Protein backbone atom coordinates (compact mmCIF):
# COMPACT_ATOMS: atom_id res chain seq x y z
CA UNK A 1 0.00 0.00 0.00
CA UNK A 2 3.02 2.25 -0.22
CA UNK A 3 1.54 3.65 -3.44
CA UNK A 4 -1.02 5.45 -1.25
CA UNK A 5 1.53 8.19 -0.93
CA UNK A 6 1.19 8.83 -4.67
CA UNK A 7 -2.35 10.06 -4.13
CA UNK A 8 -3.04 13.70 -3.80
CA UNK A 9 -4.57 15.09 -0.64
CA UNK A 10 -7.76 17.09 -0.80
CA UNK A 11 -9.26 19.16 1.95
CA UNK A 12 -10.05 17.22 5.12
CA UNK A 13 -13.18 15.13 4.67
CA UNK A 14 -15.28 16.62 7.44
CA UNK A 15 -14.91 20.19 6.31
CA UNK A 16 -17.56 21.70 4.02
CA UNK A 17 -16.21 22.37 0.59
CA UNK A 18 -17.01 25.87 -0.57
CA UNK A 19 -16.98 26.24 -4.32
CA UNK A 20 -14.85 29.08 -5.57
CA UNK A 21 -16.84 31.80 -7.33
CA UNK A 22 -16.12 32.55 -10.94
CA UNK A 23 -14.49 35.76 -11.93
CA UNK A 24 -12.52 36.09 -8.72
CA UNK A 25 -8.76 36.12 -9.14
CA UNK A 26 -7.26 32.77 -8.32
CA UNK A 27 -4.71 32.64 -5.54
CA UNK A 28 -1.28 32.44 -7.00
CA UNK A 29 0.39 29.71 -5.02
CA UNK A 30 -0.79 26.52 -3.44
CA UNK A 31 0.24 27.84 -0.03
CA UNK A 32 -1.98 30.94 -0.45
CA UNK A 33 -4.83 28.72 -1.55
CA UNK A 34 -4.51 26.53 1.52
CA UNK A 35 -4.47 29.55 3.84
CA UNK A 36 -7.48 31.03 2.04
CA UNK A 37 -9.41 27.76 2.32
CA UNK A 38 -8.79 27.58 6.04
CA UNK A 39 -9.87 31.18 6.42
CA UNK A 40 -13.09 30.54 4.47
CA UNK A 41 -13.98 27.30 6.19
CA UNK A 42 -13.02 27.89 9.78
CA UNK A 43 -12.70 31.63 9.99
CA UNK A 44 -9.13 31.34 11.12
CA UNK A 45 -5.74 31.58 9.57
CA UNK A 46 -2.97 29.05 9.72
CA UNK A 47 -0.25 29.57 12.27
CA UNK A 48 2.69 31.45 10.85
CA UNK A 49 5.42 29.01 9.91
CA UNK A 50 8.07 28.71 12.55
CA UNK A 51 11.02 26.47 11.97
CA UNK A 52 12.43 24.78 15.06
CA UNK A 53 16.18 24.69 15.30
CA UNK A 54 15.88 21.57 17.43
CA UNK A 55 14.31 18.28 16.53
CA UNK A 56 12.66 15.99 19.00
CA UNK A 57 13.08 12.22 18.93
CA UNK A 58 10.40 10.50 21.00
CA UNK A 59 11.05 6.97 22.17
CA UNK A 60 7.85 5.49 23.53
CA UNK A 61 6.38 2.10 24.38
CA UNK A 62 8.36 -0.90 23.21
CA UNK A 63 11.48 -0.45 21.14
CA UNK A 64 10.76 -2.64 18.17
CA UNK A 65 13.55 -4.65 16.63
CA UNK A 66 13.75 -7.12 13.79
CA UNK A 67 10.28 -8.48 14.46
CA UNK A 68 7.01 -6.59 14.10
CA UNK A 69 5.25 -6.79 17.45
CA UNK A 70 1.52 -7.54 17.70
CA UNK A 71 -0.76 -4.54 17.18
CA UNK A 72 -1.68 -3.96 20.84
CA UNK A 73 1.91 -2.86 21.55
CA UNK A 74 2.73 0.78 21.18
CA UNK A 75 6.13 0.75 19.55
CA UNK A 76 9.01 2.88 18.43
CA UNK A 77 10.48 1.52 15.25
CA UNK A 78 14.12 1.89 14.27
CA UNK A 79 13.21 2.31 10.60
CA UNK A 80 11.49 5.54 11.63
CA UNK A 81 14.13 6.85 14.01
CA UNK A 82 17.36 6.01 12.19
CA UNK A 83 16.51 8.04 9.05
CA UNK A 84 15.26 10.88 11.28
CA UNK A 85 18.59 10.95 13.10
CA UNK A 86 20.50 10.89 9.81
CA UNK A 87 18.36 13.70 8.41
CA UNK A 88 18.74 15.78 11.57
CA UNK A 89 22.51 15.34 11.56
CA UNK A 90 22.68 16.37 7.92
CA UNK A 91 20.23 19.29 7.95
CA UNK A 92 22.05 22.57 8.67
CA UNK A 93 18.84 24.11 10.07
CA UNK A 94 18.69 21.52 12.85
CA UNK A 95 21.12 22.55 15.55
CA UNK A 96 20.26 20.19 18.37
CA UNK A 97 18.37 17.03 19.23
CA UNK A 98 16.11 16.47 22.20
CA UNK A 99 15.48 12.80 22.97
CA UNK A 100 12.35 12.21 25.04
CA UNK A 101 11.96 8.77 26.58
CA UNK A 102 8.98 7.00 28.04
CA UNK A 103 9.75 3.40 27.27
CA UNK A 104 9.46 -0.03 28.86
CA UNK A 105 12.42 -1.36 26.94
CA UNK A 106 12.52 -3.72 24.00
CA UNK A 107 14.91 -5.20 21.50
CA UNK A 108 18.54 -5.09 22.61
CA UNK A 109 20.03 -4.68 19.14
CA UNK A 110 17.60 -1.95 18.11
CA UNK A 111 18.04 -0.11 21.41
CA UNK A 112 21.82 -0.24 21.23
CA UNK A 113 21.71 0.81 17.57
CA UNK A 114 19.72 3.92 18.51
CA UNK A 115 22.01 4.64 21.46
CA UNK A 116 25.10 4.39 19.23
CA UNK A 117 23.49 6.61 16.58
CA UNK A 118 22.65 9.29 19.15
CA UNK A 119 26.07 9.05 20.77
CA UNK A 120 27.95 9.44 17.49
CA UNK A 121 26.10 12.56 16.34
CA UNK A 122 28.07 15.78 16.08
CA UNK A 123 25.10 17.96 16.98
CA UNK A 124 24.36 18.62 20.65
CA UNK A 125 21.96 16.08 22.14
CA UNK A 126 20.01 16.16 25.39
CA UNK A 127 17.79 13.40 26.74
CA UNK A 128 14.81 13.66 29.04
CA UNK A 129 13.37 10.63 30.81
CA UNK A 130 9.68 11.16 31.53
CA UNK A 131 7.52 8.50 33.13
CA UNK A 132 9.94 5.65 32.59
CA UNK A 133 13.14 4.78 30.85
CA UNK A 134 13.49 1.12 31.70
CA UNK A 135 15.78 -1.72 30.61
CA UNK A 136 17.13 -0.91 27.14
CA UNK A 137 15.91 2.68 27.63
CA UNK A 138 18.84 3.18 30.03
CA UNK A 139 21.62 3.09 27.39
CA UNK A 140 19.57 5.42 25.16
CA UNK A 141 19.09 7.89 28.01
CA UNK A 142 22.81 8.04 28.76
CA UNK A 143 23.89 8.19 25.10
CA UNK A 144 23.26 11.93 24.80
CA UNK A 145 25.67 14.74 25.73
CA UNK A 146 23.58 15.61 28.77
CA UNK A 147 20.69 13.77 30.41
CA UNK A 148 17.70 14.78 32.50
CA UNK A 149 15.17 12.78 34.44
CA UNK A 150 11.84 14.06 35.69
CA UNK A 151 11.42 13.99 39.44
CA UNK A 152 8.79 11.26 39.29
CA UNK A 153 10.27 9.29 36.40
CA UNK A 154 11.70 5.83 37.01
CA UNK A 155 14.41 3.69 35.51
CA UNK A 156 14.47 -0.04 36.15
CA UNK A 157 17.76 -1.85 35.87
CA UNK A 158 17.50 -5.63 35.74
CA UNK A 159 19.29 -8.54 34.06
CA UNK A 160 18.50 -9.65 30.53
CA UNK A 161 16.31 -12.74 30.73
CA UNK A 162 15.50 -15.57 28.41
CA UNK A 163 12.37 -15.40 26.32
CA UNK A 164 11.18 -17.40 23.37
CA UNK A 165 13.07 -20.33 21.92
CA UNK A 166 15.73 -21.51 24.31
CA UNK A 167 18.37 -24.04 23.45
CA UNK A 168 19.64 -25.37 26.75
CA UNK A 169 23.37 -25.48 26.22
CA UNK A 170 26.02 -23.56 28.13
CA UNK A 171 26.52 -21.37 25.04
CA UNK A 172 23.01 -19.95 25.52
CA UNK A 173 24.02 -18.57 28.87
CA UNK A 174 27.29 -17.23 27.51
CA UNK A 175 25.46 -15.56 24.63
CA UNK A 176 23.06 -13.82 27.00
CA UNK A 177 25.94 -12.84 29.22
CA UNK A 178 27.63 -11.21 26.23
CA UNK A 179 24.46 -9.33 25.35
CA UNK A 180 24.26 -8.09 28.91
CA UNK A 181 27.90 -7.03 28.85
CA UNK A 182 27.25 -4.94 25.74
CA UNK A 183 24.54 -3.02 27.58
CA UNK A 184 26.60 -2.62 30.77
CA UNK A 185 29.71 -1.47 28.88
CA UNK A 186 27.74 1.13 26.95
CA UNK A 187 26.08 2.54 30.08
CA UNK A 188 29.35 2.64 32.05
CA UNK A 189 31.19 4.33 29.17
CA UNK A 190 28.57 7.04 28.75
CA UNK A 191 27.63 7.87 32.32
CA UNK A 192 29.36 8.49 35.63
CA UNK A 193 28.41 5.15 37.16
CA UNK A 194 31.11 2.52 37.79
CA UNK A 195 30.72 -0.96 36.33
CA UNK A 196 30.67 -2.62 39.75
CA UNK A 197 27.97 -0.26 41.03
CA UNK A 198 25.83 -0.82 37.93
CA UNK A 199 26.12 -4.60 38.24
CA UNK A 200 25.10 -4.34 41.88
CA UNK A 201 21.97 -2.41 40.92
CA UNK A 202 21.23 -4.93 38.22
CA UNK A 203 21.47 -7.99 40.45
CA UNK A 204 20.20 -6.65 43.75
CA UNK A 205 17.56 -8.74 45.49
CA UNK A 206 14.33 -7.84 47.23
CA UNK A 207 13.54 -4.58 45.46
CA UNK A 208 11.35 -5.82 42.64
CA UNK A 209 8.30 -8.01 43.27
CA UNK A 210 8.86 -10.55 40.52
CA UNK A 211 12.41 -9.95 39.51
CA UNK A 212 15.88 -9.03 40.61
CA UNK A 213 17.13 -5.53 39.95
CA UNK A 214 16.55 -1.97 41.11
CA UNK A 215 14.10 0.83 40.42
CA UNK A 216 15.66 4.28 40.44
CA UNK A 217 13.26 7.19 40.89
CA UNK A 218 14.29 10.65 39.65
CA UNK A 219 16.87 11.84 42.16
CA UNK A 220 18.18 8.26 42.78
CA UNK A 221 19.29 7.98 39.16
CA UNK A 222 21.24 11.24 39.53
CA UNK A 223 22.79 10.15 42.83
CA UNK A 224 24.02 6.89 41.29
CA UNK A 225 25.65 8.87 38.49
CA UNK A 226 23.49 7.40 35.76
CA UNK A 227 21.74 10.64 34.80
CA UNK A 228 23.20 14.15 34.98
CA UNK A 229 20.35 16.16 36.48
CA UNK A 230 16.76 16.15 37.68
CA UNK A 231 14.60 18.38 35.49
CA UNK A 232 11.84 18.76 32.97
CA UNK A 233 11.26 20.19 29.53
CA UNK A 234 12.30 23.74 30.38
CA UNK A 235 15.64 22.73 31.84
CA UNK A 236 16.30 20.28 29.03
CA UNK A 237 15.65 22.90 26.36
CA UNK A 238 17.78 25.51 28.13
CA UNK A 239 20.64 23.02 28.38
CA UNK A 240 20.28 22.14 24.71
CA UNK A 241 20.35 25.83 23.75
CA UNK A 242 23.41 26.32 25.93
CA UNK A 243 25.18 23.41 24.20
CA UNK A 244 24.18 24.77 20.78
CA UNK A 245 25.52 28.18 21.75
CA UNK A 246 28.78 26.69 23.04
CA UNK A 247 29.21 24.73 19.82
CA UNK A 248 28.58 27.72 17.58
CA UNK A 249 30.99 29.91 19.58
CA UNK A 250 33.62 27.17 19.27
CA UNK A 251 33.36 27.42 15.51
CA UNK A 252 33.73 31.20 15.43
Amino acid at each position, binding site marked *: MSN*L*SDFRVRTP*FHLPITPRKRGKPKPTTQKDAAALDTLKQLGQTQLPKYESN*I*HCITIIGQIEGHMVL*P*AQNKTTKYEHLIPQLVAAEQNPKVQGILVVLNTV*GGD*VEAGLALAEMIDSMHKPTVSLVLGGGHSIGVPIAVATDYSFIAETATMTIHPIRLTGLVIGVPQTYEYLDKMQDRVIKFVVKHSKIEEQAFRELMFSLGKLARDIGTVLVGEDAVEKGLIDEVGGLGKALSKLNELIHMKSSDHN
Partner: protein
Amino acid sequence: MVHYTLLPPELIFFEQDEHDLQLREIEINGIKMIVEIVDFNLARIIRVISSDPQHFLNDDYKPGNYISFEIKCV
Protein backbone atom coordinates in the same frame (compact mmCIF):
# COMPACT_ATOMS: atom_id res chain seq x y z
CA MET B 1 16.47 -11.59 18.96
CA VAL B 2 16.79 -10.74 22.63
CA HIS B 3 14.25 -8.59 24.40
CA TYR B 4 15.32 -6.44 27.33
CA THR B 5 12.13 -5.09 28.79
CA LEU B 6 10.07 -4.88 31.94
CA LEU B 7 6.99 -6.40 30.38
CA PRO B 8 6.50 -10.16 30.59
CA PRO B 9 6.54 -11.82 27.15
CA GLU B 10 2.93 -12.99 27.44
CA LEU B 11 1.85 -9.35 27.48
CA ILE B 12 3.88 -8.48 24.42
CA PHE B 13 3.47 -11.46 22.14
CA PHE B 14 -0.20 -12.38 22.34
CA GLU B 15 -2.19 -11.70 19.20
CA GLN B 16 -5.43 -9.82 19.49
CA ASP B 17 -8.24 -11.52 17.56
CA GLU B 18 -10.67 -8.64 17.87
CA HIS B 19 -11.19 -6.57 14.77
CA ASP B 20 -7.81 -5.60 13.48
CA LEU B 21 -7.34 -1.99 12.66
CA GLN B 22 -6.18 -1.53 9.12
CA LEU B 23 -3.18 0.64 9.80
CA ARG B 24 -1.00 2.00 7.04
CA GLU B 25 2.01 4.22 7.02
CA ILE B 26 1.86 7.07 4.53
CA GLU B 27 3.71 10.30 3.86
CA ILE B 28 1.84 13.49 3.01
CA ASN B 29 3.63 16.77 2.30
CA GLY B 30 6.75 15.35 3.85
CA ILE B 31 5.06 14.32 7.08
CA LYS B 32 5.06 10.63 7.83
CA MET B 33 1.96 9.35 9.61
CA ILE B 34 0.13 6.20 10.57
CA VAL B 35 -3.44 6.17 9.33
CA GLU B 36 -6.38 3.84 9.67
CA ILE B 37 -7.98 3.01 6.35
CA VAL B 38 -11.70 3.76 6.65
CA ASP B 39 -12.70 3.49 3.01
CA PHE B 40 -10.87 3.02 -0.27
CA ASN B 41 -10.21 6.75 -0.50
CA LEU B 42 -10.56 7.79 3.12
CA ALA B 43 -8.22 7.45 6.07
CA ARG B 44 -8.13 8.64 9.66
CA ILE B 45 -4.87 9.85 11.19
CA ILE B 46 -3.75 7.78 14.17
CA ARG B 47 -0.28 9.12 14.80
CA VAL B 48 2.17 11.55 13.27
CA ILE B 49 5.75 10.33 13.09
CA SER B 50 8.18 13.17 12.81
CA SER B 51 11.15 14.60 14.60
CA ASP B 52 10.11 18.16 13.70
CA PRO B 53 8.03 19.46 16.63
CA GLN B 54 6.32 22.03 14.36
CA HIS B 55 4.66 19.24 12.37
CA PHE B 56 2.58 18.48 15.43
CA LEU B 57 1.05 21.97 15.36
CA ASN B 58 -0.35 21.50 11.86
CA ASP B 59 -4.14 21.52 12.29
CA ASP B 60 -4.76 19.52 9.12
CA TYR B 61 -2.77 16.55 10.33
CA LYS B 62 -3.94 16.22 13.90
CA PRO B 63 -4.71 12.66 15.02
CA GLY B 64 -8.40 11.96 14.46
CA ASN B 65 -8.62 14.06 11.31
CA TYR B 66 -9.76 12.45 8.10
CA ILE B 67 -7.78 12.51 4.92
CA SER B 68 -9.39 11.79 1.59
CA PHE B 69 -7.46 10.71 -1.43
CA GLU B 70 -7.99 11.64 -5.03
CA ILE B 71 -7.03 8.94 -7.44
CA LYS B 72 -5.00 10.31 -10.29
CA CYS B 73 -4.83 8.42 -13.55
CA VAL B 74 -1.40 8.60 -15.01
